């Protein structure tokens, strides 16, 4: 099955090359792009269908157990040394990345559809970069080797730089440059941290000189259980490694004072770029914390990470929400809402218990769906009005009923209405954090109220109120079939996750429990995600 993963990752790249060959014929280019992205989606569904929730060969105390693995030596350097430095092309998938992969392939399909008429300049290059970006994103989620992870992580900068820089808004060059440099600076420091971690493991146990994430997680766990001087060594090392990882991932998430690149990049990016930026790219940061920081540097996460990240997340939740409240530009509002929503996700992950981690992981998917869809809607409206200012909107519900339906539906999902997806993620995250530090959870919960406030006032100033007599409003046409096709799957998924969260939580349960078990003395099975009353009540409806 590993070859399916590889095919899924490489397929968009092949599509991109084909698109460039066909550059002279925009129609062929568009159809190639949609066929390629649909094929990638189909492959991700094959992966989903073949995914085994309880892997039979999982060992009792294994931290990570990727499935459908594919391993090949990439860089091996062993002359003169007994134990070679070994970097692998190590692909796989597990419960934490499974849904993110599906989310990525789904959002790329929507991005291709929404750009169909919006992008007319250098069409072939646009779709080529979009597909290359998909390869990069899928690669990050399927990488189980530190360096492979990092390579894909950093590689995503290049396609997004061009997407924002060439097809973006009026300040595109500045936005693209700032985004690129900001994230690169952080991730270079992370690279030093990752190397330091591998060398530290090797220092204690010369037999292990690997970059494989599961192997490292296991080895660090063993070493942490060792004698006191070993533990003292790791306490110091983990602190520094965590700081380095934090530099890269906190910028990507983004956490509060590191978020300044985000509103700019989101607003200037073309619709497809914003969708993938908000929907998937920001998840690289939180996924990085989940995949690398939580299992690899547990001590630093528990001591330094929790207060640091929780405080910054809480500030981000409130700050992002207040910023969103004051915006007059619809796209900026959605961009700031991302800062706020990602705060919930981070609160969940850093609750370090099964509820929180499951909630945080689910919140990544939810945010990808709702914010991705919100950016799609903003883009569709912009294509019609050529404006994103609330002053130019109002009373659109009467003129664009289908659009209004989707906007209301997605906004409700984004603000966490029970029965839709946002609710489960936020509640689980907050419950998790409440168990650890009630204060953060209580303050963070205030963000939900603010979220309802700014999203409802957005709905009010765009859709509701009397029809306005603006020339631009007279000849508006409602969403066409292509646009509905871009939105409908996302909306359906929002509803499905909201009503039946169990299958989603079940697939990630073994991995979530394994990570939570690192932080708890009692066996992981004692804490059952499904035993949470809130969920049980929801499902009984």
């Amino acid at each position: 099955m590993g070859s399916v993963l590889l095919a899924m990752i490489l397929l968009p790249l092949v599509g991109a090359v084909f698109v460039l060959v066909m550059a002279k014929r925009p129609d062929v280019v568009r159809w190639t792009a949609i066929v390629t992205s649909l094929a990638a989606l189909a492959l991700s569904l094959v992966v989903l269908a073949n995914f085994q929730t309880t892997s039979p060969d999982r060992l009792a105390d294994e931290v990570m157990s990727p499935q459908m693995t594919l391993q090949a030596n990439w860089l091996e350097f062993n002359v003169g040394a007994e134990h070679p430095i070994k970097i692998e092309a190590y692909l796989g998938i597990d419960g934490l990345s499974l849904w993110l992969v599906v989310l990525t392939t789904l959002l790329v399909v929507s991005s291709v559809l929404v750009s169909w008429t919006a992008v007319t300049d250098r069409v072939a290059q646009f779709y080529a970069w979009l597909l290359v970006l998909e390869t990069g994103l899928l690669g990050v989620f399927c990488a189980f080797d530190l360096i492979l992870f990092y390579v894909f992580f950093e590689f995503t900068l290049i396609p997004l730089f061009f997407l924002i820089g060439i097809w973006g808004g009026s300040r595109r060059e500045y936005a693209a440059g700032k985004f690129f440099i900001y994230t690169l600076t952080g991730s270079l420091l992370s690279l030093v941290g990752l190397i330091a971690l591998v060398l530290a493991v090797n220092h204690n146990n010369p037999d292990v000189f690997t970059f494989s994430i599961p192997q490292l997680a296991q080895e660090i766990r063993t070493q942490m259980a060792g004698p006191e001087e070993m533990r003292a060594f790791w306490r110091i090392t983990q602190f520094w490694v965590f700081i380095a990882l934090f530099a890269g991932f906190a910028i990507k998430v983004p956490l509060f004072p590191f978020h300044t690149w985000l509103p700019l990049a989101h607003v200037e990016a073309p619709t497809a770029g914003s969708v993938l930026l908000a929907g998937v790219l920001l998840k690289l940061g939180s996924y990085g914390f989940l995949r690398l920081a939580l299992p690899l540097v547990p001590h630093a996460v528990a001591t330094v990470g929790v207060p640091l990240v929780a405080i910054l997340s809480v500030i981000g939740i409130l700050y992002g929400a207040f910023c969103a409240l004051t915006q007059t530009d619809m796209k900026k509002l959605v961009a700031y809402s991302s800062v706020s929503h990602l705060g919930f996700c981070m609160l969940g992950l850093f609750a370090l218990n099964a509820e929180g981690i499951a909630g945080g992981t689910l919140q990544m998917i939810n945010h990808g769906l709702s914010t991705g869809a919100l950016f799609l809607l903003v883009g569709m409206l912009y294509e019609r009005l050529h404006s994103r200012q609330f002053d130019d909107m109002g009373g659109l519900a009467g003129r664009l009923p289908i659009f209004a339906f989707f906007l209301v539906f997605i906004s409700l999902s984004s603000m966490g209405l029970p029965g839709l997806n946002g609710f489960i993620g936020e509640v689980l995250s907050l419950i998790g954090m409440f168990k650890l530090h009630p204060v953060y959870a209580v303050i963070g919960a205030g963000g939900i109220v603010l979220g309802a406030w700014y999203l409802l006032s957005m709905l009010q100033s765009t859709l509701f109120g009397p029809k306005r007599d603006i020339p631009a409003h007279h000849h508006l046409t409602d969403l066409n079939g292509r646009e509905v096709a871009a939105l409908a799957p996302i909306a359906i998924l929002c509803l499905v996750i909201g009503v039946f969260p169990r299958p989603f939580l079940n697939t990630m349960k073994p991995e979530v429990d394994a990570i939570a078990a690192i932080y708890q003395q009692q066996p992981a099975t004692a804490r059952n995600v499904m035993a949470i009353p809130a969920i049980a009540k929801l499902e009984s409806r």
Partner: protein
Amino acid sequence: VEAALQSVFDSAWTIAPELVMVGIATLLVLMGSYLAMGTASERHAAGRLCTFISLIALGVPLVWLVAWGSPGPAEPLANAAFIDDPLARIIQPASLVVGLIILVLMRQRLNEKYPAEHLACLVFIIAGLNLVASANDLIALFVSLELVSIPTYILLYLARPDARAMEATVKYFLLSVFSSAFLLYGMSFLMGSGGSTNLAVVSESLRQATGMVSVGMLQVALVLVVAGLGFRIASVPFHFYAPDVFQGTTMPAAALLAVVPKIAGFVALLRLVWSVMLESQLAPDFASLGTYGAAVLAGLALLTMTVGNVLALLQTSIRRLLAYSSVAHAGYMLVGLAVPGANLVPNGAQAVLFYLLVYSIMTLGAFGVLLMIKKQNRSIDLVSDVDGLGSTHPFAAVLLAVFMFGLTGLPPTAGFWGKFNLFVVAWSSGSLTMRLLAVCLAVNAAIAAWYYLRLVKYAYLNAPANDVSAVPGRQAPALYGAMGLCAVAALGIFFFPNVLMSLLGGLGLG
């Protein structure tokens, strides 16, 4: 004297390819006097003939070395002046490839009056570089380095007959002579301490302290040698000539200056400093030399990369930008050099050489791209000259993007592994200084990203400039082919790093 001469004779077979190259180059110079006259078409034919001869002079040794290895003895004598060791086996073919690429670049701007002299200088320089790679003796090393330097002066002088080129040449000449004096003075201290000009003997005597030599003398030697070679690798504070000379001379000559002296300098530093003075098995009396040397090199590295990058940020001329970027890269490589110890995986020498080769490919590529395009009446100089290249000359723009991302160190280019190796080396050394230096390297790489990205931004995001034209591929197939190969190498080494890593395997372990 007799012993010294004997040691050269002993290694006559080892340096046979270089002797042949020097012979051919001499022949070219002789031919030059007859070729300089004649009509335009005759001069044109003469230029082609000279190019062909240089191609033979560089290509045949390359094929020979790759196919059959060095013609020297299989077990080199330890006291030979030139030896065929792992370092030489890597650098010699690489330097011939570099020479061939520069030949292709020079072909683009061949000096009409003195084609033979022009190309002869190139062959001399590459022969000198090959000799530097195999030199095992202080005097042989110095003479080889001069064989690189002296033709460079002529090349710079011949390149362009205007005042700016003259200024550049004089600047380079004076500073180069000055630095050679430093180097020679440093070598004399080293010889005094080691009791011989032969590096193997010097190394051996540093392992067994005799009590006659104080470590202070070696420290002086180290500082002087590093200062002398610092000029060649363009490290701060010996870098002042670089931007002026790069801007004042022709594009191919600037490409040569960015790559060849850097290879020569780093190879000499590896031979003299890394494997002799920073060695881990130094006698107890000299043990402090290792820490001292590492500190000197680490300080130099920090200074060089930071100053290079910050000044590169301020440039509006591409050539000055590339000059400062070459300064910054010297700083990165000094990080690897400052880590002693051959038993690390990878060790400092391996990391430096990997970086050096990758850097050479990408820098030559960057200069090659600038030769592909032409502003009306002048060659490319300002950063804004590449405006909109992505839509007007897509091929050149793609290559430029690959090389710029490569110099930044982004995946998927070989530059990523270059930086990766340096990080690993600096961190695995275990010293706090080196670890801080690794962090500084990361920050510097991010600063550098800004100005490399700026070129990509101009090429793809700006509106095209009308008066920039490209040299069509039909007229310069060699240039297009060579640049294409450079790009393929820059990307290919990323996906298959083992190809290069395995070549570096035995390095620094003997």
